[in-house]
């Protein structure tokens, strides 16, 4: 079983290069780029060998962060791998214990795991001071990597089960809030540090080293420093934690295998006879129908909710530098950032519909109706939020004189990024979780094309809004005339590019709708 799963993952890895030429190039590009990054980080970790004190300060906290990232990143962006979704194995008579081990082994064969292992190899080098510290370094780093992977599997399994129920949606909202609340102690610690970041890292690291996430990462450092008993204790604790996680994972997996349907369905809604719901609200045109249908999906499809729940909060991250250092103006960026994120988020809109898109093709829906209608719900959320963030940002920064140009820039970014999304969602759709699948899964082997499309969308949106950006920069640097010029130009620019983008998108859509459908069906 374990061998089968590993072989399956290897085949999937190889198949990444077997897609269309453009996609294969995207994969190669991504692998080379991240390959460099990972190798550089591995060497960086290995070079900590020369400074044991620094290694003891950095590695436990970095390791603990890595474990957290392993658990959280799949939830929010790239998604976990559906080949490893336990519910898929429900119809095969595989003993849960074997399946649990097999799925962990399968998770180890994948680009994120390979990257982690490469960097961990660097960490092992960093601990090679004495024979004992080398040995413990190898064992406990391996334990730490396994901890990261097992915890990631367990969190995904629990989150999938939670989010697919109606109550789970609320749980997700609460989780997002908790994350925000957790930010504040971090802010306080950082703001009190007053510049001595190494001291902060040192104190955080000593705390992290005594949490379950850091036990295994910190153990070799103790040995290398001569605290053999403490080191072995931490190693034992780390192994015990891994074992506990394994038990939790096995339990979650057994539950999912025995009751797979609960993972894929959300609570059923029933409406009264003759009730068209939202479809009865919008304007009586195909555009209105598309817009209202997308809104219904936002309401009922967990895949949209995961993103929609977080994007509006992203600009709050700018409060970190605001509170921790003296860069007061940074809050001015909240509205432009939100505008960009919201509009950029639409760049793969069609892919979420998967092959249900055939209804649009079969109906010969006009391109303009399809393109416009899809953007309406996002606009309905983005416009009020942009205004709120712009005013709040200007108030926090005490720069109401710049409010006009901030609004102008936000509108420009909003319009431009919507324009890019409108074209790109037809030209370069990439695979996403299918309707009914866990919102936290991404199709295997799609990392390359995903990165390529996301990068193209982001860069072209920024490049295309260069004139308003330049004006905004001038206004910020003190040119009073540029404030109003930036506001007017930004407004006109955003509206104009939105229109152009939607029209170009509509034309491409009308020419390429069948090809688009074919690529959605194939994925």
């Amino acid at each position, binding site marked *: 079983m374990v061998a089968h799963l590993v072989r399956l993952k290897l085949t999937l890895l190889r198949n990444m290069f077997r897609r269309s030429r453009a996609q294969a190039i995207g994969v190669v590009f991504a692998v080379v780029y991240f390959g460099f990054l990972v190798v550089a980080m591995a060497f960086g970790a290995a070079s900590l060998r020369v400074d044991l004190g620094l290694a003891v300060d950095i590695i436990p906290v970095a390791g603990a962060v890595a474990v957290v990232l392993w658990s959280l990143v799949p939830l929010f962006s790239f998604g976990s791998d559906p080949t490893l979704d336990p519910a898929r194995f429900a119809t095969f008579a595989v003993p849960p214990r074997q399946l649990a081990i097999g799925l962990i082994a399968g998770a180890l064969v994948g680009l994120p795991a390979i990257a982690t292992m490469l960097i961990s190899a660097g960490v092992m080098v960093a601990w090679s001071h004495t024979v004992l510290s080398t040995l413990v370094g190898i064992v406990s780093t391996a334990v730490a990597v396994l901890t990261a992977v097992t915890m990631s599997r367990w969190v995904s399994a629990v989150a999938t089960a939670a989010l697919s129920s109606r109550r789970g949606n609320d749980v997700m909202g609460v989780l997002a809030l908790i994350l925000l609340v957790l930010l504040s102690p971090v802010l306080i610690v950082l703001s009190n540090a007053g510049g001595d970041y190494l001291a902060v890292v040192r104190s955080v690291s000593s705390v992290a080293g005594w949490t379950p996430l850091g036990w295994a990462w910190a153990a070799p450092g103790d040995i290398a420093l001569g605290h053999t008993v403490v080191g072995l204790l931490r190693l034992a604790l780390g192994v015990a934690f891994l074992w506990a996680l394994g038990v939790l994972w096995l339990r979650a997996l057994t539950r999912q295998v025995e009751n797979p349907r609960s993972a894929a369905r959300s609570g059923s809604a*029933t409406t009264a006879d003759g009730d068209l719901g939202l*479809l009865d609200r919008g304007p009586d045109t195909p555009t209105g*129908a598309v817009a209202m*249908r997308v809104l*219904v999906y936002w309401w009922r499809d967990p895949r949209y909710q995961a993103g929609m729940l977080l994007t509006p909060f992203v600009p709050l991250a700018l409060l970190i530098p605001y509170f921790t250092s003296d860069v007061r103006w940074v809050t001015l960026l909240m509205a432009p950032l939100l505008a960009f994120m919201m509009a950029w988020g639409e760049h793969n809109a069609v892919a979420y519909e998967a092959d249900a898109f055939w*209804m649009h093709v079969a109906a*010969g829906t006009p391109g303009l109706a399809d393109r416009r209608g899809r953007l309406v719900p996002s606009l309905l959320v983005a416009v009020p939020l942009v205004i709120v963030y712009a005013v709040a940002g200007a108030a926090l920064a005490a720069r109401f004189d710049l409010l006009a140009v901030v609004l102008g820039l936000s509108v420009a970014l909003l319009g431009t990024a919507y324009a890019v999304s409108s074209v790109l969602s037809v030209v370069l759709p990439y695979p996403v979780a299918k309707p009914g699948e866990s919102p936290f899964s991404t199709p295997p082997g799609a990392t390359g094309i995903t990165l390529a499309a996301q990068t193209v969308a982001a860069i072209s949106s920024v490049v295309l809004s260069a004139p308003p950006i330049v004006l905004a920069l001038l206004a910020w640097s003190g040119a009073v005339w540029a404030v109003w010029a930036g506001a007017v130009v930004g407004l006109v620019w955003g509206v104009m590019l939105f229109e152009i983008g939607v029209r170009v998108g509509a034309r491409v859509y009308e020419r390429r709708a069948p090809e688009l459908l074919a690529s959605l069906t194939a994925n």
Partner: protein
Amino acid sequence: MSEPSMTESQTTERGTSSTAASAPADLPAPRGGPAAGPAVAIRGLGKRFGDVIAVKGIDLDVPRGSFFGLVGPNGAGKTTTLSMVTGLLRPTVGQAFVLGHDVWADPVAAKRLLGILPDGLRTFDRLTGLQLITYSGLLRGMPRELAAERATELVNALGLASAQGKLVVDYSAGMTKKVTLASALIHGPRVLVLDEPFEAVDPVSSATIRSILADFVGSGGTVILSSHVMDLVERICSHVAVIADGRVLAHGGIEEVREGQSLEQRFVSLVGGTTQVEGLSWLRTSSD
């Protein structure tokens, strides 16, 4: 840009739909002028997927007012052919015409005349049944009032009335088929292309669908359907085409194609498979 004209044609049609209300299934009557030429004409249609040639040049005429069955073994190219005829999949070579409109040169005109039930494609299943049917009408530019009115009629005719408020994702396979069929009917098409319409449908619903289709053909519409079930095709179709390995092996009126045999016998002899099963001895429990 074609929105206004579409709305207009649908509005004028609203007058005629009241006469159709007397039809047994309460369905809108098919629109259109007098019959001339085939309902669907397929000319040299072919499709290549990489190294695989799925459809190898098909020529076929589907007469107006016919109940046309497309039969063939698994992987014969039925779904590929129907997708190319309905504008869902671009052909590598060849043309397809629906009532004289080239599907690939003038898709808007052709699609307005077509109602499609694809096989194995998802629908917008987070909508309720009623919402989905209405949405299909709205996408085609129908006024909401008319779309909602017809959607309710269709829901009643297809026996989905009690499930109209449930999400389509919670429907059974047969109910999903029916709701998709209703979505294909709402704009009053003149040619219906149905891929495996009876699969997973219970006998009562199957009879309902058959009577709706018979009425549709009786009032001048054309139905093309694909199926594996020879008995069914033999019973309800007026014309049939047998395709295998991407080619048409035989086509014409059902009596013509049968040549005195049952359709199933004729099919097996045309396709040239064997029904003899070898091996699998371990499946026979008596050998224990």
